């Protein structure tokens, strides 16, 4: 069982009290306890079981405009005392920074509605094994599948966030995750792909059979890929990766990147950076949402935020420190976005695929080829050649490249949005990207 609120509260309160006694003018403390149990199967046999029981404490002490942070996994009173002392000593010799401060009191979260993020239900390991066997049996029905690996992770955690302005709150969350990775072989060539389901509540998971079947189907489709010629072509991003475009957006509009001048979207507020029909929303209050939260990592109230409205950039993601620097109020995005998504498009997928005679449908990208300073993008990729809306053959060992300033402007969304991750986008088409191949 994860520790209750009372236990975590008392550690947080004692730490704040002790820090103040040692001379801290402000203090922020977070205490977390999480228990995670994972079972892995390989080819229908138990491969690994893993139980993790871990505590963490993070202490930030301020002495006026001086600040220092400390973290530890050891919650013993003695250790917390030693660490707090060290934290204060370090703060004392750290230079002043005029923007260091706790969040403004009036911005702190006050309403704590239940977001239904915790499911008490416990799945014993033998039940986990049965579930995974079901997934692997479904996957290995495909004769070309030569290896299956699955895992089931159940994670329960509880946390408390407290500061010396009197804020103290936290709640339990849970997560259940089933994933299946399959390897298919034809002649001497192998391919690998996966599928998964991840939910706050056990009963919301999709069936293991579906996960297994879809992992196998994704994998077998990739066999016998071709390397295509370099060309300029429309790229369709599968839902597995289309959300990546939103991750680039959110990194580029974080107040930190804007204030430091290291974002290609600096000074773009009020400008049309996407087509007029596009809206991007960050909604922290979705019931059972994988990214849902009542407040950000500083305790600031998080509300629904329309980041892009009719293609226009409306706001940055603002925390307290960089907000003060940019003269903006925190909008509760310290630690990033919550449930970020493109509002659903209007075009059926079949029509999107037929938008040109030839499109390249990408299911996977590899590498970290995004330059947030310039917006330049170049990554390895694989997927399928699509002609007249039909999948013709798998494609691999190619790269796709462009610049996000243009990529954003050339997006067309399909109408197949679903909420599988914390950041979600429908399948989308980007016209005019460059593929490098043969």
């Amino acid at each position, binding site marked *: 069982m994860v520790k209750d609120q009372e236990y975590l509260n008392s550690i947080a309160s004692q730490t704040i009290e002790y820090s103040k006694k040692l001379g801290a003018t402000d203090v922020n403390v977070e205490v977390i306890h999480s228990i995670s149990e994972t079972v892995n199967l390989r080819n229908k046999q138990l491969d690994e079981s893993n139980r993790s029981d871990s505590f963490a404490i993070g202490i930030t002490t301020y002495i006026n405009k001086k600040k220092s942070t400390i973290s530890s996994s050891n919650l013993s009173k003695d250790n917390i005392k030693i660490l707090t002392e060290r934290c204060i000593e370090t703060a004392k010799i750290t230079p002043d920074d005029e923007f260091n401060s706790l969040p403004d009191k009036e911005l702190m979260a006050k309403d704590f509605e239940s977001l239904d993020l915790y499911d008490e239900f416990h799945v014993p390991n033998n039940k986990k094994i049965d579930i995974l066997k079901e997934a692997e049996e479904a996957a290995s029905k495909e004769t070309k599948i030569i290896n299956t690996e699955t895992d089931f992770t159940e994670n329960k955690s509880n946390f408390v966030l407290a500061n010396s302005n009197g804020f103290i709150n936290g709640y339990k969350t849970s997560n259940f995750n089933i994933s299946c990775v399959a390897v298919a072989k034809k002649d001497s060539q*192998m391919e690998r792909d996966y599928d998964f389901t991840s939910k706050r509540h056990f009963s919301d998971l999709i069936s293991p059979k579906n996960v297994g079947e879809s992992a196998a189907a994704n994998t077998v489709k990739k066999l016998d890929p071709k390397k295509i010629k370099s060309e300029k072509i429309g790229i369709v991003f599968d839902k597995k990766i289309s959300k990546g475009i939103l991750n680039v957006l959110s990194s580029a509009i974080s107040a930190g990147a804007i204030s430091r001048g290291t974002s290609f979207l600096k000074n773009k507020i009020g400008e049309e950076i996407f087509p007029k029909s596009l809206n991007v929303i960050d909604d922290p209050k979705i019931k059972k949402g994988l990214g849902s939260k009542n407040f950000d990592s500083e305790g600031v109230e998080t509300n629904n935020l329309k980041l892009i409205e009719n293609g226009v950039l409306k706001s940055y993601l603002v925390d307290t420190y960089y907000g003060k620097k940019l003269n903006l109020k925190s909008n509760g995005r310290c630690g990033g976005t919550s449930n970020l998504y493109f509002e659903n498009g209007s075009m059926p997928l079949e029509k999107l695929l037929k938008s040109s005679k030839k499109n390249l449908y990408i299911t996977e990208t590899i590498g970290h*080829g995004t330059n947030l300073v310039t917006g330049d993008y170049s990554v390895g990729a694989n997927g399928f050649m699509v002609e007249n809306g039909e999948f013709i053959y798998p494609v691999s060992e190619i790269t796709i*490249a462009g610049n996000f300033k243009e990529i954003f402007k050339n997006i067309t969304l399909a109408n197949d949005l679903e909420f599988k991750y914390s950041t979600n986008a429908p399948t989308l088409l980007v016209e005019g990207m460059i593929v490098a*191949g043969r």
Partner: protein
Amino acid sequence: MSNFFKNSDLDNIKAESIVSDTLNNCDDGELYLENSKSESILLDDNKIKNSSYSSDLGYGFRAITGEVVAYSHSNDISKDSILKSSENLKDTLKSKKGTYNHEIPKSNKKYYEDLNPIEEKSQNSKIKILNEVNNYIRSKGDMVSQVTASFLGEHKEIEIIRSNSEVLKDIRPLVRFNVSVVLEKNGKKETGVYGIGGRQSYDEYLKNENWKHVCDEAFRIADVNLKSKPAPAGEMKVVLGPGWPAILIHEAIGHGLEGDFNRKKTSAFHNLMGQRVASDGVTIVDDGTLNLRRGSLTIDDEGTPTENTVLIENGILKNFMQDRLNARLMNTKSTGSGRRESYKHVVLPRMRNTMMLSGKYSQDEMIKSVDKGIFAVSFGGGQVDITSGKFVFNCTEAYEINNGKIGYPIKGATLIGDGPSILKEVSMVGNDMKLDPGIGTCGKAGQGVPVGVAQPSILINKMTVGGTQL
């Protein structure tokens, strides 16, 4: 060496008896104890932005029988907690019976000193250097729009208790000094990053104003990129510079030669042992025994002393990298490659310092032999799909080559290739092998571990460059 049971109701003898009792009927396993301290001091935007310290103490209890691994970890080093883990392991393996393998090689060689880099240098002196770094780079001109510099230090003590009271210990220092510069000129912005580090005190890296060299490199790379033109798209010849570009080897073949993927037959290399996988003259080793290097280890995280493992000799595949589990299941010996990020993670076979050894050509000869291609000097990161063998890595400093001459710098681009075949495309191996500056972290299954790479300049006949110019 700290006493892991100092504040607990256990002592070594009691803990050893729980370990022996738990692992009696297993093939292998251990209680791994870890006490790590780390610090990070960051200067950004003209200010000391962050000064943080972290201390982590915990254990990971592992039992293995056959192919099944049972693992339980916690940061509560107490009798209750360890007994609970023990129950958990026994429960997972209750239907299996194994024979404990007591054999573990011994060595008294050490590749780094028992020192704590965090405490060896005062906070004030670290802050002072970061401020000097900032002033030094900003004095290079108005074009400097951002400077970020950081110290990262770590001190990790580990103790491994195996069945029958066998105890193995190691103390591992690790530091890293990093500088990132953003330059802006005529509305164009570019970044340059450089860093150094390894398993010794900060001062070894900073002495004789060596930190200026790190600043100069970061500035130079950003400056080169300001002049860059869009990169070409398509297949062409690629000359790689010596040192850090060896992440090509790490991605293209290193991961594919880790024991676990080969035992499971999911690596593109699993059936290529003894066969030609690279051109003649290509020799690649994975060496854990280099003094003070970032990827070096006196013993691995299972207690096995590390070694210099020959992976590919003159183009022929000779060995995989093994931890104890995969070695046993593949009827071979551990190569001292069993590593974990921390006590929270299971052991996996991992790379240490992966190196291609020198050949006979000069870099000049390589460049002169290329009509049209690119010369890549510096890289960001890379990634590989070990099953299909496809890998990528991102250039951060590269130039076009035209008619045997180095031309304009080109924008950062991803290079993609096929692991099992790329080394057969290596047509010249340089005589200028160089180690990387000590900044690499390798990720696998969600675990990051420090690694090193090295290589001479090499010429690759054909690779796909992911630029935008058709």
